């Protein structure tokens, strides 16, 4: 007799899929995400790749994870802990059990817990977590995925090696069943993915359906869950990852500015995916250039900018370090240039696959001489689009290199994004110099407008032939000048040019909470979601706390000092050893407090909430 499972409603759920890097975990996670998104849930996801390319199968370093938070209410982070942990083998369980809430559910592929796998996962001899008491505080659902998958495909004529590749579809099907989701988006995806090998689309679909059916037919009574669609602002949405949103923001900026995007880069984790994405869109006239190193990457972009194109370069910390000399040149040339830093754990090679936001001071001060560069930072995966677009606007309209900061957490995370229409994007106005000179009049390449920006005088413009370079320049003419007063004037002018941007950006707003109070949590970058979550909870408890999040890190919005003065304490949480906090203390002379986590992983909302509680006691 088949018992019908009961259905329970939930506001939000965190699922962590984990398995071997060969198990297709990322794909499984992404499919569930897309299905949830299409269904209308709010979502936030984060993949956790192994550092090794493909560490030996079954080992702890080989574990790949994908965490997904979806809900019927607003969701801002992938979640501190998960409700459901799906593990394809023993190593996946061992590596991730600490992330499971007490009483949470474990879905385990029993085949991944044979003695060999237990040994690879470094369980002590004789230990068998599925049998002993170690999991007694959790709800354990054991499924022999391998066998069931093979059964589903018996008679297909496929070998076991090929059959086993679709194990992940079985699990996915089962989880779809648990959360009452449609299989259609995945089936469509499979068709598209295996367009050239329809037999594989069939196989995978068969297994997916088998997993779903397993839920329906299983003899153990199980609860199914219902997570209703979230109430999102009206609009058209899609699910988007940070690096993808960055690439789209660049394409959009080029499109709106009606200029060619030149993307000079050298591959590095976690920035490379921007290159991969951009190189797919050559029909937008985008020129990607994989340079021989980071120095060539940035200087080729400068060459492109000199030619009147949107020069962009991207890297992560170690690569940015190599670009610093050339960024100084761009500051002198006063050309638009966008430098993208998708931050990762440092210093040096550090933790390449982990996240950190420890390159802020490098962006601000990491060049020789007085060398100011505007900085903006994205706060979530989808926010990359608008922020990189804004960075490009500043670069072009203020004729300056600009830093755009993202990080590994944002880059690989995903969330729903309310898609703007192309027409709704703020125009980007390049001011190209035209030859309007009178007979005998000399062209002044360093003449400035009210933004202190010079004109963009590009090769091919007859009569405006001129020379630029990295030696100090005479005001207006741009000729080499060693004059002492001119140097001071130019240093101050370059600083003022950047400071002036404050007049062209929005005032800093409070994101959440009262305009004045005991505590302001001031964040930047990828801590947004977790601060938002923690502050919301604290506010719900009646605490006197607010949240402001900086997109503009240089210059700061003009009203920032005043805004800070409205709170007794400023708390600055950062995934570094305290960087923004230094700048705020220096600039506003307030005793801002640092909350730091330097573990290569984001804050949990609970950690932040604890700190908020401390300061609002």
């Amino acid at each position, binding site marked *: 007799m088949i018992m019908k499972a009961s259905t329970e409603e939930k506001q939000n759920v965190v699922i962590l899929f984990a398995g071997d890097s060969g198990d297709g975990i990322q794909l499984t996670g992404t499919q569930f995400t897309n299905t949830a*998104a*299409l269904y*209308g849930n709010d979502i936030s996801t984060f993949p956790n790749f192994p550092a090794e390319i493909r560490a030996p199968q079954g080992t702890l370093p080989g574990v790949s994870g994908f965490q997904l938070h979806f809900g019927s209410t607003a969701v801002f982070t992938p979640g501190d802990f998960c409700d459901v942990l799906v593990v394809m083998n023993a190593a996946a369980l061992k590596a991730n059990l600490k992330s499971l809430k007490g009483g949470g559910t474990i879905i385990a592929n029993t085949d991944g817990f044979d003695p060999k796998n237990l040994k690879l996962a470094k369980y002590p001899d004789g230990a068998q977590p599925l049998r002993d008491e170690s999991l007694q505080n959790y709800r354990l659902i054991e499924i022999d995925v391998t066998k069931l998958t093979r059964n589903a495909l018996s008679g297909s004529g496929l070998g076991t090696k090929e059959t086993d590749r679709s194990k992940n579809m079985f699990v996915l099907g089962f989880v779809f069943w648990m959360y009452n989701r449609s299989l259609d*988006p995945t089936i469509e995806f499979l068709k*598209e993915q295996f367009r050239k090998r329809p037999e594989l689309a069939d196989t995978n679909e068969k297994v997916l359906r088998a997993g779903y059916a397993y839920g329906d037919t299983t003899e153990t009574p199980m609860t199914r869950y219902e997570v209703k669609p979230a109430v*999102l602002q*009206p*609009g*058209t*949405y*899609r699910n988007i990852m940070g690096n993808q949103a960055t690439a789209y923001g660049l*394409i*959009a900026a080029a*499109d709106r500015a009606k200029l060619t995007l*030149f993307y*000079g880069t050298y591959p590095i984790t976690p920035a490379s995916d921007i290159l991969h994405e951009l190189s797919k*869109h*050559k*029909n*937008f*006239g*985008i*020129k990607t*250039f994989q*340079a*021989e190193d980071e*120095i*060539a990457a940035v*200087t*080729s*972009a*400068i*060459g*492109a*900018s*000199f*030619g*009147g*194109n949107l020069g962009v370069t991207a890297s992560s910390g170690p690569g940015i370090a190599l670009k610093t*000399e*050339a960024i100084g*040149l761009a500051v002198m040339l006063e050309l638009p240039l966008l430098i993208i830093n998708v931050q990762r754990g440092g210093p040096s090679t550090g933790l390449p696959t982990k996240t950190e936001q420890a390159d802020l001071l490098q962006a601000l001060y990491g060049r020789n001489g007085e060398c100011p560069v505007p900085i903006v930072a994205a706060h979530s995966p989808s926010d990359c689009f608008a922020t990189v677009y804004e960075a490009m606007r500043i670069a072009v309209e203020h004729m300056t290199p600009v830093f755009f900061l993202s990080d590994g957490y944002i880059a690989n995370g995903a969330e729903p994004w309310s898609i*703007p229409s*192309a027409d709704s994007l703020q125009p980007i106005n390049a001011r190209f110099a035209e*030859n309007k*000179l009178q*007979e*005998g*009049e000399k062209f002044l390449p360093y003449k400035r407008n009210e933004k202190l920006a010079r004109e963009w005088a590009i*090769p*091919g413009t007859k*009569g405006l*032939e*001129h*020379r*630029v*370079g*990295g*030696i100090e320049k005479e005001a207006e003419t741009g*000729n080499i000048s060693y004059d002492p007063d001119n140097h001071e004037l130019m240093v101050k002018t370059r600083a003022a040019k950047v400071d002036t941007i404050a007049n062209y950006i929005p005032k800093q707003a409070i994101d959440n909470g009262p305009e004045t109070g005991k505590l302001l949590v001031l964040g930047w970058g990828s801590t947004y979601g977790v601060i938002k979550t923690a502050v919301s909870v604290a506010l719900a408890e009646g605490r006197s706390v607010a949240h402001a999040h900086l997109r503009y890190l240089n210059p700061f919005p003009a009203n920032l000092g005043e805004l800070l003065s409205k709170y007794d304490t400023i708390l600055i949480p950062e995934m570094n050893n305290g960087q923004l906090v230094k700048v705020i203390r220096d600039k506003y002379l307030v005793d801002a407090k640092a909350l730091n986590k330097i573990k290569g992983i984001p804050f949990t909302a609970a950690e932040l909430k604890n700190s908020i509680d401390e300061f609002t006691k």
Partner: protein
Amino acid sequence: MSTTTSTDKALTAKDFTSDQEVRWCPGCGDYSILKQVQTVMPELGIPRENIVFVSGIGCSSRFPYYMETYGMHSIHGRATAIASGLKATRPELSVWIVTGDGDALSIGGNHLIHLLRRNFNVNILLFNNQIYGLTKGQYSPTSPEGQVTKSTPMGVIDHPFNPLALILGASGTFIARSMDRDPVHLREILKRADKHQGTSLVEIYQNCNVFNDGAFEIFTEKASKKQETLFLEHGKPLVFGENGSKGIKLDGFTPRVVNTADVAADELWIHDERDLGKATLLVRFFDDPAKEGHLPRPFGVFYEEDRPCYETLLQEQLDEAVAQKGKGDLDALLRGKSSWTVL
């Protein structure tokens, strides 16, 4: 700085002279090179505004300031990379890179070899004075072993590069050598460089009369020039010396100097700019002129090869993408394949 004399009359060398005072040491070989470049420019028939000179840092790299064209005096060693980005996005421009032996071969070595393999259609003028001029006299990667310089009071111990061998090894498609003191030859080679579709590399022996005076005297001075230099001409035998009295003949893989009188004309090595095998040996004519029985130093075009340019291939891919998928539609891109609408 440019003025608005934009009438379309034929340009002259003067039209390519900027208003900036030239600031090399009196007597520096750079003056002659500047003059030849300014002289050749009008003959190329390229509108002045479509010409860009990009340089790195060094005495030689001051060059762009003196040219009434677009120009960038960039940072040390990176002119090649900057030019790559410029050419990739503005293929119609005539891009000239001016660089020194330190700028191109020391700090800039990597960008140089990568530019060469990519074969951007640009011209590189490598001013080789076998010294760091601007920083006042340290040895460079082309300084001969034993040379006493500011940084080598007991003599250089680094084995120098053979620049043209390196450049050929990096798949250069146009390789030539000339000298500051032979204006006619230099102008000829500059014109050839301009004509070549691909990266043209012209090594120019240049005298730094302050820190390395006379480094190339033996090749440039009348007394020794005929004996010590070998001017290459396509399709002609390799002959040199007074009235072409000497020639080069191959003995297996070993080139030997012979009296032209002693051998039949067709036994001599016939120069073929298109023969990679010959070029690989020819760039190795790099003997120390003090060595007994040394080979003369060749000048002229060593090698030329037709190979598609990076910027052309890049544009072709873009065109192909448009042909396949249509011109990019931003709204369609942003919407993607699985969007949903909340009302």
